[in-house]
C-alpha cells in the first residue's frame, strides 16, 4: 500500500498559506495536489508524531514551535528525523472600526481590560473595569468589549502568552496570571476570524483580536491599535518590534521523503522566494515575511534538511 499524494495537517493559521502553496504545487507540477487538513497545531503534531507510514501525515504546519513533549512523542513513535521550517510570522492585532479615533494601548492596559482578576493593592480582585478610561484616563470613554478567539484556538494561546502572561509581572500581579474574564466583556468569538471583523465593523465600541492578515484584507473598514507604541505593519512584525507576533512553522518527516513522491519539490516551492519572499505570493494574502537574512538562513537549513534537535526547542 502506498500513497501518491502528500498529506499535510496542522495549524489553522498556517492553513491559508499552505493550502495556497498546495494548490500552486498541484497546478505547476505533475504531482498530484497534496491533501491538506486544518487540524490545529496541536492536533496536527499529534497526528504527525503518531509514527512513520502511509497512514500518517508527511508534513505538519504549526503556528507555534513544536513542544519538547511533542518532540519526545515523535521520537518514541519512530519519527526520528524531522526537518523544521520557519516560513514567516503572524501578528496578532487589536483592531477596531475606522470610525473611531486611533488608539494606542500598552500590554498592561490590555491585560487589565481582559484579565479575570486584576491586582489592586497587592491583592487580586475580580476585574472591576467596565470602561477603558477607568483603566487609564488617557484611554477613550468606551465600554470594554473585546471579541477574541476561543480557548480552542492557537491564536488565543498566543495572545495570552504574549500579552497577558508577558505583562502580568510589570502590571503588578502578585501571583501568576490565570484567566480571561468571563463576565461578557471578553467574548469568545469562534474560529472564524472573519466574523469578528464583520462584527467590530458593526459594533464600533468593540475591539477584535485576530491575525494580521485579516487586518490587511479589511484595511478599508478596520484599523489596529498600536501596542506599546508600535503599529502592526509587516515590517514591524517581521523585525520583531511589534510585541504580539509569533512565528509560523512546518515540520517535515524525513522518513517519508522518497517514499511519497513530491515532498522535496513541495518543500522547495514553499520555501522559495516566489512564495515566502518579500514579493512572494503569500505576502499578498497576509503572510508577514521573514527578514531577508533570517529567511535565507531558514531556506538553507531546510534545503540541507538539518535535523531538529530537542535542544533547539528548549
Amino acid at each position, binding site marked *: 500500500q502506498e500513497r501518491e499524494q502528500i498529506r499535510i495537517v496542522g495549524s489553522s493559521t498556517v492553513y491559508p498559506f499552505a493550502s495556497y502553496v498546495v494548490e500552486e504545487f498541484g497546478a505547476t507540477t505533475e504531482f498530484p495536489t497534496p491533501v491538506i487538513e486544518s487540524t490545529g497545531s496541536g492536533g496536527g503534531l499529534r497526528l504527525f508524531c503518531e509514527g512513520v507510514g502511509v497512514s500518517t501525515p508527511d508534513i505538519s504546519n504549526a503556528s507555534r514551535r513544536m513542544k519538547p513533549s511533542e518532540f519526545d512523542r515523535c521520537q518514541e513513535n519512530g519519527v526520528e528525523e524531522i526537518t523544521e521550517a520557519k516560513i514567516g510570522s503572524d501578528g496578532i492585532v487589536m483592531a477596531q472600526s475606522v470610525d473611531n479615533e486611533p488608539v494606542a494601548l500598552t500590554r498592561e492596559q490590555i491585560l487589565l481590560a481582559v484579565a479575570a482578576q486584576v491586582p489592586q493593592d497587592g491583592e487580586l480582585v475580580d476585574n472591576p473595569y467596565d470602561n477603558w478610561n477607568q483603566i487609564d484616563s488617557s484611554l477613550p470613554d468606551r465600554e470594554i468589549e473585546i471579541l477574541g478567539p476561543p480557548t480552542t484556538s492557537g491564536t488565543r494561546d498566543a495572545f495570552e502568552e504574549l500579552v497577558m502572561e508577558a505583562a502580568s509581572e510589570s502590571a503588578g500581579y502578585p501571583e501568576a496570571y490565570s484567566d480571561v474574564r468571563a463576565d461578557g466583556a471578553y467574548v469568545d468569538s469562534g474560529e472564524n476570524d472573519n466574523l469578528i*471583523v464583520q462584527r467590530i465593523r458593526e459594533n464600533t465600541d468593540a475591539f477584535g483580536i485576530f491575525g494580521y492578515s485579516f487586518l490587511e484584507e479589511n484595511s478599508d473598514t478596520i484599523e489596529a491599535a498600536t501596542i506599546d507604541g508600535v503599529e502592526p505593519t509587516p515590517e514591524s512584525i517581521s523585525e520583531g518590534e511589534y510585541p504580539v507576533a509569533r512565528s509560523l512553522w512546518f515540520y517535515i518527516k524525513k522518513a517519508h521523503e522518497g517514499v511519497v513522491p513530491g515532498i522535496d519539490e513541495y518543500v522547495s516551492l514553499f520555501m522559495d522566494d516566489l512564495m515566502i519572499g518579500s514579493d512572494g505570493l503569500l505576502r499578498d494574502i497576509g503572510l508577514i515575511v521573514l527578514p531577508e537574512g533570517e529567511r535565507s538562513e531558514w531556506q538553507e537549513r531546510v534545503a540541507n534538511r538539518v535535523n531538529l534537535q530537542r535542544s533547539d526547542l528548549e
Partner: protein
Amino acid sequence: MATRRLTGSVNDARLQRRYRAEQRFRIYCASAVLLALAIILTFFSNIISQGYTAFWHHEVQVTLDYNERAARIGTFALDEDLRDIASRGATRAIPLQMRNNPELAGTTETTWVPVRGEIDQYLKGGRDLEPELRRQVDALMEQGVIQSGFNTRFFTAGDSKLPELAGILSAAIGSLYVLFVTLLFAFPVGVMSAIYLEEFAPDNRFTQAIEVNINNLAAVPSIIFGLLGLAVFINFFGVPRSSAMAGGLTLGLMTLPIIIISTRAALRAVPDPIRLGAFAMGCSRWQVVRDHVLPVSLPGILTGTIIGLAQAMGETAPLIIVGMIAYIPEAPTGLFESATVLPAQIFTWAGEPEKAYVEKTAAGIIVLLAILLSLNAAAVLLRRKFERRW
C-alpha cells in the same frame, strides 16, 4: 317549533361560541401550515438569490505569449495591463506546459480566461475596486474584452483558494464515493437485519432489546457517530483519516438504523396472507422471504434506502470529526484517498474570508439541494408507482 330544533343555532349563544372557537382553531391550524410553507419559500428564495450569481462569471480575452520569462513564471505570458485582471490560475501552469511541450516556446495563443475573483465580484455589483483598476475594467468591459458567460468551471473544477477557479467537482465525486461505501455497507446489513427482526426473530426480550436499540441508534446525535468513526475505523481498524472509506463507513453505521426501520416497515406492509399462503405451500421461512416477501417489498425497501442515503449525503458533523473537512482540489480516485464531500465543501466555503465565496457557498447549497430533492422525489415516485392496496 320542529324547525327551530335543528336550525335554531342563530340565537343560541353557546352554539355561537362553539362555532367561533371552531373557526379560530381552524385558522390556527391553517396558518401553521401556511407559515411553514412561507418559511420554505423564504428559505429557497433566499438561498437562490444569494447563489444564482455563481453560475455565471466573467472572462477576459487574453493572448498568451509563450516567451522565455513565461517559462519561469507564467504571469509573464500576459500583457502587462492584464496581469492584475486575469486569474492567476490561468497562467501558473504555463511553465509546466512549456517544459512538457518545448515546441510551444515563441508561439502565442488567444483564449478566454476567468477574471480575478474581486473583479468578478465588482462586475456583479458585489464590491468596489480601486479607482484605477475600476476604470481599466470598465474600459475592457466596454471593448468586449471582458465578457460574462455561464460558469462551467463551477461544475468541472475542484476547490481552489482562488475563488474564481473554485468548483464543486471534487466534493461531488467525494460525496459519490462516500455514498457508495455507505450504500455498500448499510444496504445489505440493514436489509438483512430487518429481515431477521421482521421475519425470523422470536418475540423475546433479546429481540425487543435489538429493536429498542435500533430505534435509539436512529436518534443518536450524528456527531456521536463521528466520535465512533474516529475511534473504531480510524484508530482501531486503521482506515486512513479523511478517506471516503472512513466517512462512508461512519455514515453507514448512521444510516443503518434508518434503513432497518424503513425496511421493516416495507416488510410489515406485505400482508400476512401472502406469507401464510406460501407457508401452507411448504415453503421454508427463507423461501417465503426470498420468493414472496422481498419481491413485493422491494420498492418500499429501495425508497427507504434512498431516503437514508439522501440523509447521509447531507451529513456534515460526523465527517468533520473523521477529518473530511480537508482542502481537496482534485477528485479522489480511490476509496482510501482523502476526499471531501459537498456539505463539507459548503462548510469550508462558508468560512472563507473572501466575499466571492459567499455566492459559491450558496451555489453549492443549490446544487446539493437539487440533488437531495431529486433523490427524495425519486423515492416518492418509486413509492407512488409501486404503492399497492391490499
